[in-house]
Every structure is written in structure tokens, then in C-alpha cells.
């Protein structure tokens, strides 16, 4: 909304007056480089990948310095697994089996600085059905099929979800268009969630839903990313709040993924 108003004013003034745009240089104070750690652990047996970089420039050349000499370990409470660097700042623990309900601790030691994050793998919440309903053209949508995911939210616990939808080859729900959900007001309900955030699908399209159950911290972090990328909703911008201590940016995220596909039959 806040963005819409100035935009509207601007568009009108552009016509009637002489508003103008130009590229300018912003005076930047040299900010200290900060360590950024991105780690995603998936339930089941998968390669566990950790990427470690430093922050770089925002303007101009935005290549990042990668950290290749960090000591990285994942601990599941009984065993500590060392994770080795495989190139370009990426550290991979191959074919690791992550189990729901287990708390994992990721420790990164980079040049003597220790960064630690803890996360508990959530339980997988299965998708019941993927449905769709035909919408005529309107203010809000083109003509086509609005897709909807239906699943049973587990009662008596807080659940957090990130949703992905693929229509043919087009992905919705990526980091720039996050679709996030929590069961704050819906605990234990059967959730029927229409994906207004995605485009409508057309007849005979293949649609695939992915329901990523995550922990609360991962959702908070993603909301923070959404805010800085979207320019916020009025509040001053700030770095997304990840779960690493010691000032590292990024997050140790945990997901349990359910997936379901269907074809739209008119």
C-alpha cells in the first residue's frame, strides 16, 4: 500500500509536471565485511549443503568473497559429523539422514570465529489433495484455474510452512516471491489454501505442490528476507534475523518436504 500511493502520485505528476529519474552515486561508508552462512537441512537422506561467504558490495561488482578454509561440523546430539569444503565456499555432507524431532547443531569456525546455530527438524505434514477451481477474468486475475492445496494441520503444536508451486515449468514461491504460512489461527484444522500468490493455471497443465514444513526460526528468517527484498512495509529496513550467534548473517534452515502433482482436467 505504502508503495502504491507515491507511485500513483508520481504517475500523475509525471504526466502533469516534470518528474525525472536519474542514476546517482550514493556516498557509502566502508562497512565491515560480515560472515554469511546459508545451510539447508532436509528431512530424510540428502546431501547437506552449507555455503559460507563474506558480505560484498551492494552497488557495482557484487561478487562475494567465499570462505574455503572454515571448519564445519554438524552435531545430532550423539555424533559430530565433519563437513568438508567441496569448492567455491560450499561444504557438503553427502547422503546424510536427518530425522524429525532431532535437534541439530551446526558449528562453523572461520578464522578463529565460532558461529553456532541450532534447529529441530519438524515432522513432515503430508498433502491431502491439490485442487483447482476455474476463475473468470476479473480485477485480480486472468481467466484460468486457481490452484489450492489441502492438508491436515497437526493439532496441539505450532507448524510453519513454506509453499512451492510449479505450473508446467514455472516455479512460484522462490525467494523473491515467498509463500509462507503458519497455523497461528488454524491449529489442528484442515487447511485449504488457495494460491492467489501464483498465476492461474490453464487446462491440461501439470501442477506440482511442495509443502515444506519448517521450524519457527526458519519462517521468521524468510519473512525477514521477504521484507528487505520487498522494501519493507514502512518500517526501517533491517537484516533478517537468522539463528547463528556471534553476528553471522544467513540461517541454518530445516525442512521436511511433502510433494504432490496433478494435471488440470477441465
Amino acid at each position: 500500500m505504502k508503495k502504491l500511493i507515491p507511485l500513483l502520485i508520481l504517475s500523475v505528476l509525471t504526466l502533469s509536471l516534470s518528474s525525472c529519474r536519474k542514476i546517482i552515486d550514493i556516498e557509502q561508508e566502508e562497512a565491515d565485511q560480515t560472515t554469511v552462512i546459508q545451510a539447508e537441512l532436509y528431512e530424510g537422506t540428502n546431501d547437506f549443503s552449507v555455503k559460507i561467504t563474506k558480505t560484498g558490495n551492494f552497488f557495482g561488482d557484487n561478487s562475494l568473497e567465499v570462505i574455503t578454509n572454515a571448519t564445519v561440523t554438524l552435531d545430532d546430539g550423539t555424533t559430530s559429523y565433519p563437513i568438508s569444503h567441496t569448492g567455491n565456499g560450499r561444504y557438503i555432507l553427502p547422503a546424510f539422514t536427518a530425522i524429525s524431532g532431532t535437534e541439530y547443531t551446526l558449528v562453523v569456525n572461520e578464522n578463529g570465529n565460532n558461529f553456532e546455530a541450532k534447529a529441530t527438524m519438524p515432522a513432515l505434514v503430508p498433502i491431502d489433495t491439490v485442487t483447482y477451481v476455474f476463475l473468470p477474468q476479473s480485477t485480480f486475475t486472468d481467466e484460468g484455474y486457481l490452484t489450492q492445496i489441502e492438508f491436515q494441520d497437526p493439532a496441539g503444536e505450532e507448524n510453519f510452512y513454506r509453499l512451492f508451486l510449479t505450473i508446467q515449468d514455472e516455479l512460484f514461491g522462490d525467494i523473491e516471491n515467498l509463500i509462507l504460512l503458519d497455523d497461528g489461527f488454524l491449529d489442528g484444522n484442515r487447511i485449504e489454501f488457495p494460491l492467489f500468490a501464483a498465476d492461474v493455471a490453464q487446462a491440461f497443465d501439470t501442477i506440482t505442490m511442495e509443502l515444506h514444513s519448517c521450524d519457527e526460526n526458519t519462517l521468521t528468517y524468510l519473512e525477514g528476507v521477504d521484507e528487505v527484498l520487498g522494501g519493507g512495509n514502512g518500517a526501517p529496513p533491517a537484516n533478517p534475523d537468522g539463528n547463528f550467534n556471534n553476528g553471522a548473517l544467513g540461517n541454518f534452515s530445516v525442512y521436511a518436504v511433502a510433494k504432490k502433482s496433478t494435471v488440470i482436467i477441465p
Partner: protein
Amino acid sequence: MKNLIFVALIFISSITISQDFTISGTIKDASNGEDLIGATIKVKELPSVGAITNVYGFFSLSLPKGDYTIVFNSLGFKPQEQKIALTENKKFNIELEVSSIEFEEFNVTGEIEDENVSSTEMGVEKLDPKSIEVIPVLLGEKDIIKTFTLMPGIKSGGEGTGGFFVRGGGVDQNLVLLDEAVVYNASHLLGFFSVFNSDAIKDVSLYKGGMPAQYGGRGSSVMDITMKDGNSKKFGASGGLGVISSRLTLEGPIVKDKGSFIVSGRRSYADLFLKLSPNPDFNDTKLYFYDLNLKANYKINDKNRLFLSGYFGRDVLGVGTDFGFNWGNATGTLRWNHLFSDKLFSNTSLIVSNYDYEFIIGGGDESFGFKASILDYNIKQDFSYFLNDKNTVKFGVNVIYHTFDPGQLLSEIESFTPIDLNDLLATESAVYLQNEQKFSELFSIQYGLRYSFFNYLGNSDDVKTYNTAGDVTQTQFYNRHETVQFYGGFEPRLAAKYMLSESSSVKASFNRNYQYIHLLSNATASSPTDSWVPSSNNVKPQIIDQVALGYFRNFKDNMFEFSVEGYFKNLQNQIDYKNGAELFLNGDVEKELTFGRGIAYGAEFYLKKTKGKLSGWLSYTYSRSLRQFDAINDGEYYPARQDLIHDISVVGIYKFTEKWVASASFVYTTGLAVTFPSGGYQVEGVTVPFYSGRNQSRFPDYHRMDVGVTWYNKKTDKFESNWNFSIYNLYGRENTFSIAFIEDENNPGQTVAEQTSLFKIIPSVTYNFKF
């Protein structure tokens, strides 16, 4: 508290028992019967004795028995002398003739000679709405707020930002009063124009500090605007045709010399031009604002007079049927002046203030609408007791009942459950007592005490208490109008003047102000959708202390006025958002807030030339405004958004002939402090900005020059008119409205900063008439 006032009155009266008689009455403009505010009453035989008229044109002065020559005077009027033998109380109803030399000088700042030096008040700026018409402004819309921002210590955030900043305070720390009613949002079109139609305004004072005890409720400043009463002699019309809007004012007597009315309207018409556009995206766009000022007064008898005034203004934006947005203020004031005696003047006011906004997205049965508002009922009782020629005592009480509607989301869509956040209720009250005491010809003090208190009231719902992390620590049910939280505090006010010579003085002031309601303002630009919230169990009142010291000097028979004022402010219980706060339709918005403190300090230099063919002023302000919050920037001091370090204004008005007046102004201000990324990193392949702290970057410096010329047609008894031509932003400076970060066209994947500026060179023409 009542006892305290009583005791103080007894004390003051006990020290001054004598055989005095009182001269009292009113001073008016002979041409239209308007009360003259701030007109002087001087006694030739007693050079140190005098009085000035109050906002209703009333004065009272007690003198020992004797023969006197009384001189009544006001800026722009011929002085009038009366010889009297004072053996009993006397009443005067003085009408002053307009001075023929009015044209020679444009004393825009509406002050009588030497008043800057001799008055006890400091940190106050005044404007004569009639004279500002020669100062060039955007699109020829004469604008009191824009003209004030050319004065030291009062700053604008640039084009497209609503409101103004006084001595490092925020937009919400300004108390803006129109005939005593609070105006919550003083800008049209997101700050391009102020809501005050100069045609309907008689007098404006802006207190930057040392405010008298009768004012309270905001931390930084008071802008007190008095509407015209209307011509009580004859019917008249005046108006203007401008590039963006037109104005029409009608005024006249209800009963000659007993009552009058004024109706003044203004409407912009940019949208009417848009209708002519062949582009369908524009020709169904709505974009206009209007103002309507109404006032009527009636003098029942010498002791009683009634006033009724109202203001209605609205901005309307819309694109086709898909999007609509409108907001506006409405105020109403009913006042009763009553004279208990020649010495005791009373005014009782009943006031309503409302501000609301609404937007609608989508048409027909698919639409969503959002509304929010604030509504005040206010009752005020003020007394002025003109004890003797040395003491003027003012005291009064005030109670405001606030209703804040934080928002409701409605939809025509059947399956949609409306969201209606519960109204927040509160009362804000105050009692005050003040005396202006002349100790000698050289030394006078205005001292006062205000006690204000605030009740945050329940509304038959649960009230949550949050800890600093934003978690609920307590939830308790309160009935409607049950006190949830009480705050109260004393607000001492002090202003002292010592004359160093006939034309120079030093002044000092101290004031403490409590502010109980707060504007949660978007930190990147102020907008009509910023919401007001009351102090509560989670939000403490802001407490702002200011000390100021000033030196005032006039040169060359008052041709030049010079002043320098320094101030220091301590701001407690300041409010800001936590990092990454969620604001929209958030019933728990208080948990998104964080609390800290601030300081502001500065020095203001002001040199004004008031006489001669060339008049105008130079002003330079150095100031800082810093905040300190534990939760922001690791608890270190950081600049407030309005930390505009250097500010220069130059205004020149040159009168070539009776017919031609030219003017020019120049402003320079340090850029606003803003939060920009200081680096970036990647999340899932996308560059995410990295912020190293709040408000660590700056917009580019703001500067601009405007020029104008006014041509007066030959004035007759029946008709006068003038043409005003102006050029805004003469050298086409592209000042920053906003900065966006976009992908570099030449280097895909890289980010550059793109500045949007609104106005390059804007010429305009306005025609004004009066008959």
C-alpha cells in the same frame, strides 16, 4: 491542584493592593471590523507600561488615577491617541485605520517594531498571511507552513514529505491548532501543500520553545492559527485563480458591527485537466483536494460574544473504479467569550477534531476497503486576569476525550471475514497557571506551571502487556472506560528577558512538555496512513525538556533585526520501530515498538531587514538531532531522520514601484538521514541488501531557488487585484524525492541507485482579486 491556583492567586493579589483604575476594550480594523491580535496599548506618560490585545482583540490595563495619553497601534495601521483623565474604569472600542504606507514595506513576519527585542517570549515566529503572497512558492499556492520553513529552526523534509520539523523534533511533535482545534494532518497531496487556505487566516504564531503554559500535548512546537472573523462592516468577496487551484472567500456582517461570517473555499483541479487526456489510464484518474473554512461570530453584548468556526478538508485520489484513496481533517470550535469584569476575561471552548483516511481496492463485489480515524472531543476553559500593569495572570483547564480507530478491513467478498481492530480510548487533561510579571523596565519573566495527566481507558477487551522481546507477559480484561494506565506530570515553563539597552536584549527559557499521543510514522516518508496511538501500559508519554538562550539586537532604527538563539533538548521515552516491524492492520502494533531517548541541539542565526525598498532575511541554523535506542545500532547514538545539520534560507523582497514587487528565495539543507544498504550477500541466488545500521546514509543535499514578481492593478475603493508570476526551482535542481535500487541496465546483475525528483523548473501564474 485547584487549591494551588487559589493560593497562587491570593499570593499575587496580596502583593498589589492599590487605587488603580482599569482601561479595557477591543481594538479592531476600521475597514472590516476584524479584531486586531497583538495590537499595542501604550501610555505616553509611563513609557514602561503597556498592554497588547489577545486573540479576540481584547485588552485590559490598570493604572493609577491620573491624566494620560493612550496610544493604540498595530502593524500596518495608523496609531491613534486619546487623552484621558482616569478617575474611573474606562472602556474603549478602538477602530484603527489602515496605514497608507502599507505598500512600502512587506514585513512578512508580522511583528511590531522592537517586539522581537522587548517581548518576554523567545523562540516564536510570526507570519502575516496577507504579506506572504509575494514570496514565491510551488505552483503559486501561498502557504504558511512552506513560508515558516524559510525561518531558522523550522525545516521541511523536501518535496513530497508531509509536515515540518522544529528544532530536531519529529512531525508528530508539532501541535497544530486551527481556532484551538487540533489538525492531525496538515498536508495535502502528501505534503506538497498545507491544508491552510491563507485567505481564511488572520494570524499565525509558531512557538519553537518557551511555549506559554496554556499550550501542551506535543513535545516540540506549537503552531497556533487564528481564522479571520469576517467583515462586520460590509459584504465582500475575494479570491484567486491559480495553476493548480482556485479560491473564493465570501464575508460580511450578520448584524452590522455585532456579528459577521466568513466562508472560504479552495479546490484543486489537476484532475480536470487529466480528464482531457486521451490516455484512458489518466482520464479516469481522480486527484484533487479541497478546503472549506467557515466562521461566524456574534457579539451578544459588551460582556458576551460567541464564535463558531469549522474546517473541512479532504484529498481524493483514485484510478478508475479499481483504486480509491481519500483522507482529510474536520474540526469544529464553539467559543464563548465572557467578561467577568474589566480585568477578568474568560473563554470557554467546545472543540471537535477528526482525522480519517480510507482506501478501496477493486470494484463492486470484489472490493476491499480499509478505514482508520482519530476523533477528539475537547472542552477548554481559559481565564486571563489582568491584575495590574505589572502582572498578567492566565489559568485554565482542558479535557480531551480521544477515540483512536486503528483500522478496519472490510470487503464485499462474501467469504471474507471483516477485521475490525478495537477502538482505543483515552482522556488527556491539564490545568495551568501562568503569570507574566514585569519586575522593572528592563526585566520581565513569564513563569507558569502546567499539570497534565492522561488516562488510557479499557474498551471491554483484553489489554496485553509486552516485554522488550515483544512477548505477552500479561493479559487482563478491562471494562469500557476503566483506567488501564494513568500518567501525569508537571510541566514547568519559564521565559525571562533582560534589556541590555533600548535595542538589545538577552532572553532565556526553559520548558518541559509531555506528549501522550504518538504518530507511528513510516520512517522512509510520512504518509496519510501513518497512525496515531495513545500512551498505554506499554507506551510511556514522551517527555521533552528544552533550554534556550538568545541575544536580540536591532540596528539602524529597527531597519535591521538580528538574533541568535541556542537550544538544547533532552527527549525521553522516544519511540521507534524494532528492526523488521510489521505495521499494517496489526492489532498488536505496540509489540513492534522499541523505546529510547534522544538529544537535539542547535544554534539559529537570523538577520532581517524590515524597512526600505529591499526587505527580507537571512537565516542559518546549525543543528543536530540524535537518538539512542538499546535495540538499534547496538545502543549507539544515531541521527534522527530530521537531523538536517546545516540549513540556510535567504528571502529577498524588492519593491520597484507601487505596482511591481519582486521576490526571490533560496534554501539549502543537508539531506535527510536514511537507511541504505552498505553491502549485499546472496540468499538462494538473489542479492539481499545488508544494512550496517539505522540512518547511516544521507539523501543528497537539498537546495533550490525561487523567484516571483507581483503586479498590482490600480486599487479603487471597490476593487483591487494583482497578478503573481513565479518560477519554482529556477535553476532546475533535481532534488531527491526518493531513491530506489534497481538493476544496472549496462551491467546486468549489478545494482545502482536511481533517484526520483519531482519538480524541475515550474513556472506558474496566479490572479488574486478582492471587492
